[in-house]
């Protein structure tokens, strides 16, 4: 019997199949950067190609890992056991745009921002906007149920996916929709990080562009007072479209890089976006600035025009990149707490970083209680690497103790799989294992991801 790679080549041809080590190297990494070469990669043209490759991989006992742009921060796209990587680089089109019914059918390799650009002229937009949206793909977004700053009022990816086409573990193509009678397969596939099936088409919900969008920036003395202001805004029952905080370290790095107009000398910056009807935006700004000032805002300023607004957002979304200029290495954590706990958790993070002698930057979706502490270190210093690991785990434990969780939008992937059992009981995990049993009994799809090794009854069989 011919081997795995030759069978792939025979079935799909060299245009689709990659086998040379130098070609495969690019599929060994994601932004978490644990590296291992797959045996082969394919760049499919359609779902049929995916189905054929899945069948061959299964017959050869090779695991299968789907891949978008590889921007994931938890090792979700890394082929932990080698095998087959499916890259969706070629399946990147908008297949159908139905503005009247506010939906679009897209391929998983389509870049998030390209969708919003493609539909903007029609007065609609796609709401989930992860900071990586310039490069991350919608397929990857579906895998991790990606969020972004605007999820505060619009919800995360799962709230915007109306249906999926996916390839199952036998290579068969299926379609599901949230309007189907029966179990909500769409709902459980979103956020399953490629462990239940390979998504080959996505039906997304589009939203009407708001009449007015206003972006405001407030300066604070420190992160805790900015967090107090956010807790107070949410506590007053106001949900603007975005409420983002950057601390002094991040703000300085961002300004040095982007010159977007953030107050460079502030201890923390609060970025607020208010969208809606004209009257509501004006009233909203008045109310929000009052609350912010009551909680110590030193200044409040609204962007003058769309260009300034876009510049502020571009800088905010580029924050992690800007840190790269001032730090040899950084580790970005993702966790969530109930929003009343924000000031407390920010204080705790500062303490944890200090104990481990690590500089920490904070840039986060404050309105959602979704934290992203960035621990700065030097990879060449063994002790620092260990400190980052310890501090990261301590931050997660702190968030769990406050009633929070260990991932708001990045996923569990490879990185946090052992931490999952801090959040869920064996019975909780067993129920998830049952779902896995149905879709992927052999654990062929993205093995060694999400679930702790050996903790789920089904997982032991893998």
């Amino acid at each position, binding site marked *: 019997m011919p081997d795995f790679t030759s069978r792939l080549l025979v079935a799909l041809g060299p245009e689709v199949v990659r086998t040379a080590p130098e070609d495969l190297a690019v599929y060994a990494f994601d932004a978490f950067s644990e590296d291992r070469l797959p045996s082969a990669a394919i760049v499919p043209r359609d779902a049929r190609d995916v189905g054929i490759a899945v069948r061959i991989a299964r017959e050869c006992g090779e695991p299968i890992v789907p891949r978008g742009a590889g921007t994931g921060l938890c090792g979700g796209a890394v082929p932990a056991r080698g095998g087959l990587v499916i890259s969706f680089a070629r399946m990147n089109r908008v297949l159908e745009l*139905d503005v*009247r*019914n506010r939906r679009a059918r897209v391929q998983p390799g389509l870049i998030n921002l390209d969708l919003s650009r493609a539909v903007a002229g029609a007065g609609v937009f796609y709401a989930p906007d992860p900071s990586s949206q310039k490069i991350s793909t919608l397929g990857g977004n579906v895998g*991790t*149920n990606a*969020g972004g700053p605007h999820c505060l009022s619009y919800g*995360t990816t799962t*709230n915007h996916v109306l249906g999926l086409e996916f390839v199952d573990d036998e290579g068969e193509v299926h379609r599901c929709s*949230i309007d*189907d*009678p*029966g*179990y*909500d*397969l769409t*709902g*459980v596939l*979103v*956020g399953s990080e490629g462990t*239940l099936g390979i998504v080959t088409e996505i039906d997304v919900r589009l939203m009407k562009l708001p*009449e007015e969008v206003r972006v405001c920036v407030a300066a604070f003395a420190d992160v805790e007072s900015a967090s107090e202001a956010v*807790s107070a805004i949410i*506590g007053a*029952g*106001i949900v603007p479209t975005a409420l983002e905080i950057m601390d002094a370290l991040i703000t300085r790095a961002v300004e040095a890089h982007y010159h977007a107009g953030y107050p460079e000398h502030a201890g923390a910056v609060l970025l607020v976006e208010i969208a809606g*009807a004209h*009257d*509501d935006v004006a009233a909203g700004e008045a109310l929000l600035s009052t609350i912010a000032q009551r909680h110590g805002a030193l200044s409040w300023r609204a962007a003058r025009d769309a260009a300034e607004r876009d510049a502020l957002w571009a800088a905010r979304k580029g924050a992690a990149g800007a840190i790269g200029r001032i730090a040899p290495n950084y580790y970005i954590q993702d966790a*969530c*707490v*109930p*929003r*009343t706990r924000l000031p407390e958790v920010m204080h705790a993070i500062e303490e944890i970083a200090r104990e481990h002698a690590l500089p920490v930057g904070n840039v986060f979706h404050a309105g*959602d209680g*979704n934290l992203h502490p960035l621990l700065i270190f030097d990879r060449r210093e063994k002790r620092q690497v260990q400190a980052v690991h310890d501090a990261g785990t301590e931050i997660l434990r702190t968030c769990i103790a406050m*009633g*929070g*969780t*260990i991932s*708001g*939008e*990045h*996923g*569990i992937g490879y990185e946090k799989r052992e931490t999952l059992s801090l*959040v*869920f*009981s064996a*019975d*909780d*995990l*067993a*129920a*998830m294992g*049952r*779902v*896995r049993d*149905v*879709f992927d009994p052999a654990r062929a799809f993205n093995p060694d991801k*999400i*679930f702790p090794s050996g903790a789920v009854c089904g997982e032991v069989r893998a």
Partner: protein
Amino acid sequence: MIAPAGYGLGGAEPARVAEPADASELAEELRLCAQAREAVVPFGGGTLQGIGNAPTRYDVALSTRRLDAVRAYDPRDLTIGVEAGITVAALTRTLAEHGQFVPLDVPDAERASVGGVLAAGWLGPRRAAYGRPRDLLIGSTAALADGTLASAGGMVVKNVTGYDVGKLYVGSLGTLGVLVRANFKALPKPAAQRLASAELAEDARERTVAALGALTVEPVAALAVDGFGGPLRIVVLFEGSEATVERATRDLRSALGRSGIAETTLLDGDQAERAFARVLAGYTEVVADRTITYREPGLPASAWERARRMRALGAEVIADLRTGDVIARFARQHARTVLPRATILAGAAALRADLDAWGEPPATLPTMRALKERFDPSAILAPGRFVGGI
């Protein structure tokens, strides 16, 4: 043992009714039923039991009535965790004290339980603006047939920690597990609420419906209702700030004026809410024990046309212009052939006896069957009630 009154389903009566005091008692009850191979139908308020087929076996009615506590609510978090047996009205009142709400849009909120509403997969008109119940649910705990309690999600508004198993219980009609706890994202209650309704003249119908789709301030619900106790009319609900609702009303009036409609009835606040609740009540009402009501999902742009077709066949109809739902209430049986994809919301036993409540099953049915088999291997949970005989 409690007398099984009011727990009949399609002519079948349970041998007994269990009313566990809390989640662990409920889970233990399930475990014992599974051991004894007793078929269990979970019961909340029973208001949406018209959804789904009659069970093929029915030994125990499992009531969540006593699981009615609010378990976690700090209004400043804009999240709330409740036991599944709490009524929608009680949830709504708790939130309203702090100016918040969870828009579930159910008929008979005083009796309907939160768990029942989720399990029945209820979908109301305002979901176009606020999301479906599945989108508002941020965490859940279900009792499974093996007696375990399994949670997913949590009390935070953004979460991608493990599978979103909660979504499987929503709309499962209790066939995978029994919801015992639900955590929701709460929303700030809009300052103003206004229900506008107007009768539609025969010659201006299409123009009016088109005009509704082009309003600058979008209504949270826009229905064209024909029958259900009145002539052909539009029912439009606006929610938001006072200023925006005022502006929306002006826009609506001038749009209707251009279509030759001079009379618009406006109701505000509580009155609007009550009038909206009366419209919702029609969705599940069986008139004189001789009607059957369907919900057909579809695209918003085709809702009006689909509703007109059903009207021509003699149905009372609601075209939901924002969600695309068509609600059609017939006083006779043959409707299944013209609505192959619709689900039955409520119906007289005589009319639905030979009809499947779900219509054509989707092509993914084998996967659904496998899920059922894996979660409830002895098939004790609401057997036969779900899609494809699950």
